[in-house]
């Protein structure tokens, strides 16, 4: 403003006045750069160390100790201020985002350990470097943890004083009107015939009716509104802490296991029954697993048979009956997106496939094996591979031996040059079992745990046909085939479906959800509400008329704040009717 140039002296005083008017409108820390104080000049003599907090060091051990203590507390306070400053919070947020990136590009061992192994096999050196940097376990790595722990320390260090400050503000009063209201971000004025007391009284009523907190002052009224913004902001940051704690708790107490169940078979919720299982360090496997079990009565899968979606699934459904310790049995259905909840455990449906029912008779005509054998799907048309291991077997001479079969189960069988035997549709339209057979030692006694879906052929000999080619056969349900040299028969009775389930317990989900929803509510308050102050002043001018001045100051520059001021001015009209002015005197400055 042009007039500003001539009254610099008054400006300085006004600036302080205006700063006071806006003080405490937010609890956000100011950006301060505190560096070791050289300003602490030596008062009592001694050596001064520039750039130190300790100030002057007096001679002698006591002097040194005192200096050291001041130095340490000084630096600690400085570090703490840095850590809890907005700038460091910003940098830590940035680092958190940056640090999360590698985990989305490099395979992670808790998501897919197999991919990690593959990666390491393919990239020897890089694999070792990544391993060192914990890049296969980014989200539990030391450095990632360090970032978020620092962030949350910073958060707590920030939130506690702010909450304190905020409660202070809630108990205090809005600061009194600054001398020059016309320098506030939004301002209005008019003259009226009503006397000042009446105007101020009316203003206070109008403001109160609009949920402002008001404080009458000398010839003016101060008012403030929108504390919920600050409350929302604090709630949001607190909720972040709640969510982190809930997340951490769930890591300590979770349990999660997978189980493949063939139709007609059952499962009971004990550790040995699981195919795979993992749990948090504080989960007590012996006591914390819910006592229940279930039987898979039927698994239904339906697939689209026409149109562009040929072969895509439309229905997956596992009908189960579960029992609980009180002896009740309940029928339930597990579907994708619809887990069944029993106690603290949730049962999810994860996958499905086929299990051909196979009977093997040995060289002595005894039944050596009979039952469904789950084959694992390799593609969406359920081309499945699997093995049959027969241990309880006597050969044609009555000598104990072992048999192994390996091959394909294809629900809709097809064969071609490129792909070999495969399936063209996931429904069992032509469910062919294609196997090759081995005899010898399955290697089960070696003590090394074996994958039930793989055959270790090192000590096995493959059966061959008359031409010396590997003995290989296709079977349809109900068919059987004799093994060469009177070694027995294998029959393919039919097939069952199987489903894989995940049983998991999670502690802290409720807290995580509560925290998350509170965070959203807090955010909405923090970002959508405005905290603002309004001042009304009524003075008498030289002509004896009352000059009404209204001004408002918001935390952010929102268009709604001047609009609100205009509304307030309009609402004051009945009590402070305006005296029309002949000439425009808007620029009262």
């Amino acid at each position, binding site marked *: 403003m042009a007039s500003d140039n001539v009254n610099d002296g008054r400006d300085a005083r006004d600036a302080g006045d205006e700063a006071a008017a806006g003080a405490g409108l937010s609890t956000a820390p100011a950006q301060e750069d505190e560096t070791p104080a050289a300003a602490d000049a030596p008062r009592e003599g001694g050596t001064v160390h520039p750039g130190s907090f300790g100030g002057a060091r007096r001679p002698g051990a006591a002097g040194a100790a005192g200096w050291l203590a001041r130095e340490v507390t000084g630096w600690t306070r400085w570090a703490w201020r840095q850590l809890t400053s907005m*700038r460091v919070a910003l940098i830590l947020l940035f680092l958190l985002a940056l640090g999360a990136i590698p985990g*989305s590009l490099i395979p992670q061992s808790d998501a897919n350990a197999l991919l990690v192994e593959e990666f390491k096999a393919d990239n020897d050196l890089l694999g070792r470097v990544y391993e060192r940097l914990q890049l296969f376990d980014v989200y539990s790595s030391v450095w990632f943890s360090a970032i978020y722990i620092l962030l949350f320390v910073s958060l707590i260090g920030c939130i506690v004083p702010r909450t304190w400050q905020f409660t202070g503000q809630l108990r205090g009063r809005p600061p009194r009107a600054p001398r020059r209201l016309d320098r506030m971000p939004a301002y209005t004025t008019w003259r009226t015939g009503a006397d000042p007391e009446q105007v101020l009284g009316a203003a206070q009523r109008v403001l109160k009716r609009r949920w402002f907190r008001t404080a009458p002052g000398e010839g003016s009224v101060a008012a403030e509104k929108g504390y919920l913004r600050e409350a929302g902001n604090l709630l949001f940051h607190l909720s972040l802490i709640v969510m982190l704690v809930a997340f951490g708790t769930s890591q300590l107490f979770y349990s999660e296991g997978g189980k493949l169940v063939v139709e007609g078979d059952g499962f009971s919720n004990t550790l040995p029954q699981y195919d795979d299982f993992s749990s948090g360090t504080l989960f007590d496997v012996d006591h914390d697993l819910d006592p229940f079990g279930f039987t898979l009565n039927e698994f239904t899968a339906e697939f689209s048979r026409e149109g562009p979606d040929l072969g895509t699934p439309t229905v997956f459904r596992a009908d189960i009956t579960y029992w609980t310790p009180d002896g009740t049995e309940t029928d339930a259905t597990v579907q994708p997106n619809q887990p069944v909840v029993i106690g603290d455990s949730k049962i999810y449906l994860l996958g499905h496939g086929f299990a051909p029912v196979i009977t093997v008779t040995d060289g002595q005509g005894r039944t050596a094996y009979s039952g469904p054998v789950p084959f694992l799907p390799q593609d969406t048309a359920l081309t499945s591979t699997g093995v049959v291991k027969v241990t309880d077997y006597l050969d044609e001479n009555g000598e104990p031996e072992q048999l192994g079969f390996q091959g394909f189960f294809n629900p809709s069988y097809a064969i071609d040059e490129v792909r070999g035997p495969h399936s063209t549709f996931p429904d069992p339209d032509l469910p062919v079992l294609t196997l090759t057979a081995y005899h010898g030692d399955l290697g089960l006694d070696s003590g090394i745990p074996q994958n039930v879906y793989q055959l270790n052929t090192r000590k096995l000999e493959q059966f061959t046909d008359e031409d010396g080619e590997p003995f290989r056969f296709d079977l349809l349900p109900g068919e059987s085939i004799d093994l060469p040299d009177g070694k027995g028969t294998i029959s393919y009775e039919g097939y069952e479906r199987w489903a894989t389930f995940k049983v998991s317990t999670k502690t802290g989900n409720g807290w995580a959800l509560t925290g998350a929803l509170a965070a959203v509510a807090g955010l909405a308050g923090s970002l959508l509400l405005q905290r603002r102050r309004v001042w009304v002043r009524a003075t008498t001018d030289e002509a004896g008329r009352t000059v009404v001045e209204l001004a408002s100051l918001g935390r952010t520059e929102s268009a709604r704040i001047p609009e609100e001021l205009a509304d307030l001015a309009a609402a004051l009209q009945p009590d402070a009717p305006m005296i029309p002015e002949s000439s425009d005197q808007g620029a009262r400055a």
Partner: protein
Amino acid sequence: MNLAMSEELADLSNYLIYSAMAVYTLAFLAHIAEWLFGSRSKVARTAAALTADAEAVPAQRGADTIGVTVRGKGGSTDVLERPAVVTRSASPRRDAVPDGPGAAAGDEKGDLYGRIALSLTVLAFLMHLAAVVVRTVAVERAPWANMYEFSTSFSMTVVGAYLLFLLAKKNVAWLGLPLVATVLLDLGLAVAVLYTDSTQLVPALDSVWLIIHVALAIGCGALMYVAVVSTVLFLFRDSYENKLASGGTPGKLATSVLERLPSSLSLDKFSYRITAAVFPVWTFTIIAGAIWAENAWGRYWGWDPKEVWAFITWVAYAAYLHARATAGWKGRRAAYLGIAGFVCYLINYYGVNMFVNSLHSYSGL
């Protein structure tokens, strides 16, 4: 509904998309004409405002209204419908800079083309909307199951938001050209690369949370896009004003284009307000996703690439909002963070769907 009918409807939806694209193209050309004609008029209000020692302009007062003056430190005024209020803002000098007059810059022909462009955009939007609705009917589910559908819904929401802003009398007409251009790009990509016949919803996606989570994600993305366009333009306009303020002379083209945009302050505020409003919703979107993941996979958070990038996007926007609240970081630095946030959103959408092995790879490709 039988298959033949739903295929016919799906085809109809495709034709509508093609038609919408054709009309958007015409709107694009009309916008170009608007900018070209607008360049004939010489406007140089910015330099004047930045260099002149502007007087405080008295607020307009009617005889019987109360003058509420919204004052800028330099003296710009806003006349509100009700009493005028003077405001001023934290960044002193910039306050004086008036918003540009828009693409047509008062040129009569330019203005005509601007209105043609807007009418065409409305027409194209209606076709676009119809295409999405027909697709919904054809597939008998929410139209958000693959990237083709995401993309068509996304650009529809962008245009819808733009038109709503216009309807609410917000000063957003300057968004017309960049928005229509990118909507064309998005639809072109959808039709040429992402298209899939697939209509079925696999059981894994069949959940109310699909509707909530995906609809919100698309809506947030669309608004964040509008915000980021404003942020990018802010950066250009800010450099332009800086140059003028320091006595430089920007190039002719830069002057012609940037002079017609809103002031850097307005652009910055516009994108901040949108981002601030979207951020809580985006937060809820991620929560909805977590609830869904808990339902589908038995864990609400598993650091799957899609989840990771949603998180990164969220953190980037949180950093942006923090930056805005931190004195030394306002302005350009905050703007870079806002742009980074949207880039993260894009990486999550295109990158993770198409190139990364994720549980969430539902691109339909």
